[in-house]
């Protein structure tokens, strides 16, 4: 069985893929093809996500409709800032493929690549 965290992630993805407030039943039916889960399981996890502060909700009849507090892009910005450790110690960041360079340096790099490529196939 897959971990709880994995299910939380799947539910967040489902909520982002839906536009606007979504009922637990809708989330459950979206997840259904990949994960044959009990409705109550989905309800519990959605409620947990709400309690952890990831979701907004509004009352709709007897049930609630939920939607994420922040967009994927908001979290993307937060994660990138954290991973690249913009503020503070640059060497304290996660080891990443390459750091951004300023325009002049990246232009020089592009030119260098062209020189190497030209040297590779002298045609």
């Amino acid at each position, binding site marked *: 069985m897959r971990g709880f965290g994995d299910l939380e992630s799947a539910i967040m993805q489902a909520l982002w893929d839906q536009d606007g407030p979504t009922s637990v039943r809708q989330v459950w039916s979206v997840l259904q093809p990949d994960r044959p889960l009990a409705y109550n399981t989905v309800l519990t996890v959605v409620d947990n996500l709400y309690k952890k502060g990831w979701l907004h909700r509004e009352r709709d009849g007897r049930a609630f409709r939920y939607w994420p507090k922040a967009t994927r892009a908001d979290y993307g910005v937060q994660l990138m800032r954290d991973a690249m450790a913009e503020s503070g110690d*640059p*060497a304290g960041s996660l080891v990443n493929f390459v750091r951004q360079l300023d325009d002049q340096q990246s232009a020089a790099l592009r030119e260098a690549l062209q020189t190497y490529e030209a040297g590779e196939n002298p045609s």
Partner: protein
Amino acid sequence: MISILLLTVAATVLTAAAHWLPAASWVYRAPRLGIAAWYAALITGAAAIGCAVAEVLWPWQAAGEHGPLVWLMVRLLAAGAVAVTALVLLRTARAARTIVDSRRRHRDLVRLTGRRRPDLDVTVIEHPQPAAYVAGPSCTVITSGALDCLDGREVAAVLAHERAHGAGRHQLLLDMLQIAALVLPRSRVVATAREQVGRLVEIRADEVATRRHAPLSLARALVAMTTTAPGGGPTAPAGVTAATGGHTAERMHRLMRPPPPLPTFASAVLLSAVIALPVLPPTLAAACRWWPILASCLWDLWP
């Protein structure tokens, strides 16, 4: 006396490493050996200093024979050494804790908010800036911006590079040096080691990635990903780009014009030296302790 010798060993090894390793061509040709050499130098330095302190404190039981003042001084010195050691250990533990916690938070957020791409075995986070990094064991991250600007082969090469970081435990190697830098914030040698190991893990990951992927794909990805995305995104501070610009150009050169690998004999000699070096200070200290004649011989050699 032996302590002075040991401190000289520490100073020599650390100074030699800081001066010699950054420019050594064998380090460029065999980056993994270079990383090992940096670690060997730092461990040797720390071991030599530790042995020197132990050597000063060793005769503390006999100190009573030299009168109460010597007895008191030796005990004060011992207490001081214990206090300093405890402080260093405490700081190390605290720094390690901070790093572990922030890594776990980051990984959890990646897992929760990122989109899984099982076909590439990667998690995609939404950001215009092309980037890729390792957020933990079997948690490779790439931005949507990177997927937008790279072609399939380039993405594969970049991911191979990131997995090489993961397999080589490069993050751990850098984290340990980060902790060393937090404990000893003014040490030039530690700062140089950090910067150099940072450079060498990239070279090493490039080396591993190009076993299965075309160097040109990786080089193209390098160019594409250093360029600032039109959508803005977090621009690295100027100081950081200045420091990494040279290393990135070096990586490009190494990808397109790879140096010949180190001859087997040379690697064997260097590897033996790297293994033998950290053993030297404790061996020296123990030998001088058990054969005092050796100690006096060494002392006579002193200019």
